[in-house]
């Protein structure tokens, strides 16, 4: 292997039971393998209900998979080791409202000194005088900066960004994304970006994993996947985007909605919405076929596209 995988999920499953007997389960993540290499940005995209958020939490260790394992630098781990941190979507929920900013950030530092907290705040572009404030005194963008400061204060290797700017105002989004790019450049962090916005994925990711109904349907280098999508679902997502990203060669109109995750369709899960679906798609579940060394797609018909 030429590259080291810093964080890896191997065949992870996560089913959420709906009743105490566990007869009905939501198959949130269903046999998924992803990895991320040092200092790269892996994006996980999909609609809500695709399992991307659950997968992000499995990678962080917050959710234990039912089956499969998480490897950090090749070793399995149980519980938390502090090297994987997370930035959450909702800035209002990610900071303890009864703590001052100093306490919030110093909880993450090793020596709890005021200097290290001030340094972390300066790194994310906040005035160190903010240590005295409470979260309710901060704007959404500032809260998100504090959340980033908390994450980097632990000197992590991997930061999982769960829709880090979706809840922010348009003029603030660019600031936060620039900050994230800056930090990666300076400190070499590895990012896992979970986002529904393809414009942002195109902007900052190196590799992308497209998820649909708990499965990976396509993965590969971002340029490759965006410019030469092989899965009809990826084409549909690209067609639907309002961001300035490459338009797919084959435009796929949006139709239908995400299928039931309790009782997903047989064969290919996307076939109920796929304009190209054939008989084979109903009976046989597609494997992840490799179209090039790093580009994989789970579609029987990929050779046609």
């Amino acid at each position, binding site marked *: 292997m030429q590259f080291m995988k810093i964080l890896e999920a191997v065949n992870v499953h996560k089913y959420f039971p709906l009743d105490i007997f566990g007869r009905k389960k939501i198959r949130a993540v269903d046999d998924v393998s992803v990895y991320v290499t040092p200092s790269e940005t892996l994006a996980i995209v999909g609609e809500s209900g695709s399992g991307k958020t659950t997968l992000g*939490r499995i990678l962080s260790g*917050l959710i234990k998979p039912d089956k499969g394992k998480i490897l950090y630098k090749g070793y399995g781990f149980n519980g938390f080791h*502090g090297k994987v941190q997370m930035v959450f979507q909702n800035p209002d929920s*990610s900071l*303890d409202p009864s*703590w001052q900013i100093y306490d*919030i950030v110093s909880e993450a530092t090793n020596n709890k000194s*005021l200097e290290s907290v001030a340094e972390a705040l300066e790194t994310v572009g906040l005035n160190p005088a903010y240590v005295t404030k*409470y979260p309710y005194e901060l704007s959404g963008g500032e809260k998100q900066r504090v959340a980033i400061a908390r*994450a980097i204060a632990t000197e992590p290797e991997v930061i999982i960004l769960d829709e880090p700017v979706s809840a922010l105002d348009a003029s603030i989004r660019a600031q936060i994304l620039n900050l994230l790019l800056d930090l990666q450049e300076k400190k070499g962090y590895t990012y896992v970006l979970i986002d529904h916005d393809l414009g942002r994925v195109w902007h900052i990711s190196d590799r992308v994993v497209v998820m649909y109904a708990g499965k990976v349907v396509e993965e590969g280098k971002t340029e490759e996947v965006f410019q030469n999508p092989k899965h009809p679902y990826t084409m549909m997502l690209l067609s639907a985007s309002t961001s300035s990203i490459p338009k797919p060669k084959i435009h796929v109109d949006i139709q239908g909605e995400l299928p039931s995750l309790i009782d997903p369709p047989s064969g290919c899960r996307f076939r109920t919405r796929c304009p190209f679906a054939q008989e084979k798609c109903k009976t046989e579940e597609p494997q992840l076929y490799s179209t090039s060394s790093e580009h994989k797609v789970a579609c029987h018909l990929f050779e046609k596209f």
Partner: protein
Amino acid sequence: MIERETLLKEMNEHKRTIKIATWKTFKRNKISFLSSLIILGVGALSVLGIFYTPYDPYKPSFSEALMPPSLTHPLGTDWLGRDILSRIIAGGKYTLGLAFVAIVIGATIGTFLGLASGYYLGLIGATIQRITEVFLILPTLIMATLFAAILGTGLLSTLLAVAIPIIPVYAKLVHSATLRVRNEDYIEAAKLLKKSGPYIMFNHILPNILHIIIVQTTYYMGTGILTVSALGFLGLGVPSPTPEWGTIVGDAKGYIFSYPYVVFIPGILIAIVVVAFNILGDGLREALDPKLRRLL
């Protein structure tokens, strides 16, 4: 470093401004503020009663029996000639003290159980909650009467009879409050920082639900006083001649038509204190809610 000193000073000052703002909101509610003064006054009198009463609250003096309020006996005397004011002052430590200690014990145990069951869920949580629900079948007062009947009369058994029924009430309240907070992202962030369950419960969850517990405790102080007095009144609580307020009323109930003040003065006092605690609870609810802080 100078900067360091100023920052630390500012941090403490800022913490104080929030406390001042909370105090100001509280003071703005005049009735609630008045209630707190009443409670403080009655509390102070009860503390005084430990050391000093105008007359001996226990010693009968038949020559002075059933005297109406006068200058020598501001609230009159009872059928044994005991000064009612002295008995009320002396009884505060029983009624208020018992209620306070019982509520604090019940609230503390219940809060621990609720935090644990709300945070861990799973088997621990389910067990705690099912047991809790069994105890919640009956109203607090009936539950307390039941325990008092089993445990017998006396200080300790009254204490337990009032405290035990409070435990499930708090366990349930804190459980549901914990559920609302446990899925907040800052809890997840703390987990990623390798913080332990108890650490998260006491540092992240408890401070954010404390205002709910304080407000509830204020209401339950009223309930506790009422329960202690009711048990005394029924003869199931602190036995006479101890001047516990409910006991005083219970002992005197035969005189309700002939010498009403013997019954009504301690009775009205109980009512005033209970109502004051309830109004105080309303005021605290407004002042302490951290969500309303941004409006200050």
